[in-house]
């Protein structure tokens, strides 16, 4: 019954290392100069850093985020003007490596704002200190920003005394079952803010048919709550895991295709009875991510008429309609309308906002800082093209629409309740906001 078996004669495959260790970590600038270099394992020489420079940074046409040369693999993420790179010599866990690189980026941002060449150079000591803490022998360790900030601080010496006193407490927290929260948090006023942020992915065909419409949602929480509060969170969701299942519409219930939680949420409990319960970290964190594909309310409709009457002219008529409740507003609406590469001049007239031709991007950029629900407006434009000899037709990239609509969720998701229980029994104030936005994800072909 008890099947105690040796690993080694079981896995043929484990003859070849299949763990996930990272052998080295580098940050390069775009010239390929090493800004940060940290080796974790002895299987690499420092000169490996040059290989990456030669093979990747100076190579314009990179078609994969992982490059394997010989038996060395380079994983890289380019962000602003730096390459954040991990190197391994084994059959590493690729998802883990990228998750780690992105986590490093998030941590860096939270420590010094933006991750770019300048900030890396001016914070290199801090970066080494962080690396020492978040990865050991190539294995990621504690990467909770809140905890890290307790003992790795930008002010160095000043906080050091404080650290010394607390260090047992810190270390307990860094390893504990609720590693994300200190036990002794105190607020005079207990408040929790919940932001539901939805990103709409939409793709409409030339003919106006919606090819794809779905929502990537994110629930951010800022918890300023004392003690160890036990929270319960309720949505008007109906998590569908079987689409062909019961079609009985619970009124107003939103179908979520999938959701993912911050590690504070008890997954086992969610799995058994769909309740979201957790002890939140202190301050801001992402409680949950979700995806919804059915009954998406598209906040904007776009009608396009684009003609090419002659070889050197393109005529645009773009009609925009805000399809949400007239009591709501959308902010920062930006519509990017592609123009052919050989465009010389564009005349654009708009009923609202401002439109401008941006030659560098080959776009007419139409900006409307604020538009009310149910409002409509139109752009007419004419692009003059230079004569060219190429016969290839213009590929017409899709029109992109960026916006943010406050107090509106494209999926229809609402927060039903957020309950906070703490043994001292304090009252807490909860705030909820909704926002639906698009950022290069709302595309209309024409």
């Amino acid at each position, binding site marked *: 019954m008890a099947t105690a078996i040796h690993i080694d004669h079981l896995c043929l495959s484990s003859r070849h290392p299949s763990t996930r260790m990272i052998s080295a970590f580098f940050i390069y600038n775009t010239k390929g100069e090493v800004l940060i270099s940290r080796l974790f394992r*002895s299987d690499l020489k420092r000169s490996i850093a040059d290989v990456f420079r030669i093979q990747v940074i100076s190579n314009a046409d990179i078609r994969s985020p992982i490059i394997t040369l010989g038996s060395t693999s380079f994983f890289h993420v380019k962000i602003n003007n730096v390459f954040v790179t991990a190197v391994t010599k084994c059959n590493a866990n690729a998802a883990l490596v990228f998750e780690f690189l992105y986590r490093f980026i998030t941590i860096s941002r939270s420590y010094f704002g933006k991750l770019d060449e300048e900030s890396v150079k001016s914070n290199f000591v801090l970066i080494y200190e962080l690396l020492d803490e978040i990865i050991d022998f190539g294995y990621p360790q504690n990467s909770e920003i809140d905890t890290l900030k307790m003992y790795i601080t930008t002010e160095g010496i000043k906080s050091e005394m404080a650290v010394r006193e607390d260090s047992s407490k810190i270390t307990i927290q860094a390893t504990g079952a609720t590693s994300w929260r200190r036990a002794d948090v105190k607020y005079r006023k207990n408040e929790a803010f919940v932001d539901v942020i939805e990103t709409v992915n939409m793709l409409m065909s030339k003919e106006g048919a919606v090819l794809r419409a779905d929502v990537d949602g994110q629930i951010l929480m800022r918890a300023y709550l004392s003690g160890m509060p036990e929270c319960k969170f309720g949505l008007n969701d109906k998590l569908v895991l079987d689409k062909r299942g019961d079609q009985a519409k619970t009124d107003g219930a939103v179908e979520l295709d999938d959701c993912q939680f911050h590690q504070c949420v008890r997954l086992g409990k969610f799995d058994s009875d769909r309740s979201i319960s957790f002890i939140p970290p202190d301050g801001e964190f992402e409680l949950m991510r979700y995806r919804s594909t059915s009954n998406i309310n598209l906040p904007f409709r776009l009608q396009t008429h684009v003609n090419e009457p002659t070889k050197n002219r393109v005529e645009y008529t773009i009609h925009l309609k805000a399809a949400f409740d007239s009591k709501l507003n959308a902010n920062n609406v930006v519509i990017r309308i592609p123009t052919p590469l050989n465009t010389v001049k564009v005349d654009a007239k708009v009923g609202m906002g401002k439109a401008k031709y941006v030659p560098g991007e080959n776009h007419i950029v139409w900006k409307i800082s604020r538009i009310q629900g149910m409002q409509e407006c139109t752009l007419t434009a004419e692009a003059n093209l230079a004569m060219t000899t190429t016969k290839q037709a213009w590929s017409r990239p899709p029109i992109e629409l960026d916006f943010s609509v406050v107090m509106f969720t494209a999926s229809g998701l609402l927060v039903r309740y957020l309950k906070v229980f703490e043994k001292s029994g304090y009252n807490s104030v909860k705030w909820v906001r909704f926002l639906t936005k698009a950022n290069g994800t709302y595309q209309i072909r024409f």
Partner: protein
Amino acid sequence: MAAPPRKGENWELRQQLNSEYRDKRADAIKRVIANHTIGKDCSGLFPDVVKNMQTDDLEQKKLVYLYLMNYAKTQPELVILAVNTFVKDAADPNPLIRALAIRTMSVLRADKILNYLASPLSRCLKDENPYVRKTAALCVAKVFDLKPDMCIEYGFVETLRDLIGDGNPMVVANAVTALADIHEASLNMAPPESSPEGSSPNSARLNNQLFIIDHATLAKLLVALNECSEWGRIAILSTLARYRTTDVEEAEHICERVMPQFQHANAAVVLGAVKVIMIHIKNVQREDLLKSLTRKMAPPLVTLISQAPEVQWVALRNINLLLQKRPEILANEMRVFFCKYNDPPYVKVEKLDIMVRLATERNVDILLGELKEYASEVDVDFVRKSVRAIGQAAIKIESAAERCVSVLMDLIETRVSYVVQEAVIVIKDVFRKYPHSYEGIIPTLCANLDELDEPEARVSLIWIIGEYAEKIENADELLGTFLDTFKEESYAVQLQTLTAIVKLFLKKPDQSQGIVQRVLQAATKDCDNADVRDRAYIYWRLLSSDPAAAKSVVLAVRPPINLPQRTVPPAILEELISEISSLASVYHKPAATFIGKGRLGAEEMKRTVEPEEDTARERALQTVVAGQQAENLLDFDADEPESGASDGLAGLGSLSTGSSVISSQAIASAAKSTNPLDELMDLFSTASMATPAAPLAPGAGLEGLANSVSPPTTLSPSPATPTAAPAATAGGAQDDLLGLF
């Protein structure tokens, strides 16, 4: 010995490192680290830096430690200077300092230090503070890396095993991690069975009982799984993936406990959970559990597609594998794989591949609309792959073939050179699948003859002309144009011109006597390529000795091609599935092909992955005999690997039925009598012009040949990466493949 120069940066730094002011010293250390980062050698400052180790400033201490990690190896004699401080720090009341000290000490890679490490490490492994314990756990792996004997001697490995039962989940996770690391290190240390050197008695001893997962351990791991940090979860999940059980109840228990991890925000946790489930699902018997496992696996996989592009790519590559194993899991989800205009190219290409995998009669119309749209984008590579995908859809779904062809014809009308060429190549494959369905489009194709300047496209069109010579009035004229430039053409085009003209001659002997003479002359006299010459001679002799036999040989009906279900052979697929989210499963090839000292050659790979199957050579022979398989190079190894043996005969059978369809009984009987030769010929005529991309190439010789004459076309839907991965062609090609990638 010359005294060090009294100027220059290092001299300045030395002054500062010895300064009486704390700030100045701290500053100098930072500069040393900065210099080191940009590659300057700072080893000369060793003693001066080490002097600054004894400090209350934690940040400064960390920097000195960082310096030590980098230079201890270069100054082994001087490291001893630091030992005292280390040992003292390892007993500091501050747990952060204790942890820091052993963490650093264990990576210094200097023997002298290691000897001093033993007792602090044993103490720290039992420290009251979990942070220190979790750090110490990893230290054991580091020490093992340097001096395995020491770990055994002091019973560190033993202690690690005890730590699996620790009350703190993080400690459990790191203990598991360290044990796995040690386990693998010891496997690498022991030379593989084939190596001549005998393993030392020590490593043999190590090799055994290092990391056993028994029932009790399993229970502990499952408990810790729900409590530890995301990275810890990944470590535990990889360990669970290595646990093998045949016990149904246990497998079901594992699956039930792991399933909630699908909801974790970290993609690596999700994929780790998928991996564990894919392994243990084999033993699950409860119907409802099975159903809920497959049902719950799909949504998190889809969600991964909205992650950062790199993570997306890893997920897509793994989804591709999963679909080869369980095509049903994402059956209704094709839309989420639609490419966004601004997706990076590597993501787009993967999405294309998966879209074709998910194509069914129901969704093929939407798919075609998308593919047509992609074909008008600017990235040439992506456009070509989109066109290719249309062809794959046609071959996969018979009822949609007509619509696919009409989309392809629309694309040809765009007259964009690379689109037209790719479309022609794809249409050739459509013809190979549906031989007599779309002859009406042939004139349009021929009208585009001038557009085609790539060998593969030319080859495809020539093949079509040859194949349908009897229906194309001016076939001789068209083929004549290729013959006129015969000498300048690539070998692939030459071969195909030769075959096509011979086909033409056999179909219309009266009008094409002259042209066949010319091509045989040209191919035997003016051509220096062995394949072309040899084939020309074969045709020549065949034509002159027995035209009826020639007809049955050259014009034999070949079985239609198929789109393979898998791009990876089953044995390797199994292995890759159990390594989901690893580099191997991203590359779709076993880890041994790209890591380790002696990266294995193609031959050895075959042996290691398919020990139970026939040897490569036998398979190669069978392949040559079984013309049917050669035609179906595409789905080598696809479904029934063992059927290979009987295929020689099967080929014969199918051939005789096939040829009776063509024409007369006489030919059919002739076909039977000349069967082996016929098969062989066929093999070459088709292999040379299309698809020599059997992923695992049992017919390595054959494939090599095909490769040498034509650029390898891959019809199989896995375009970007080296599909030819596991066995590739020649062993030496391994590095190039990787480089390409």
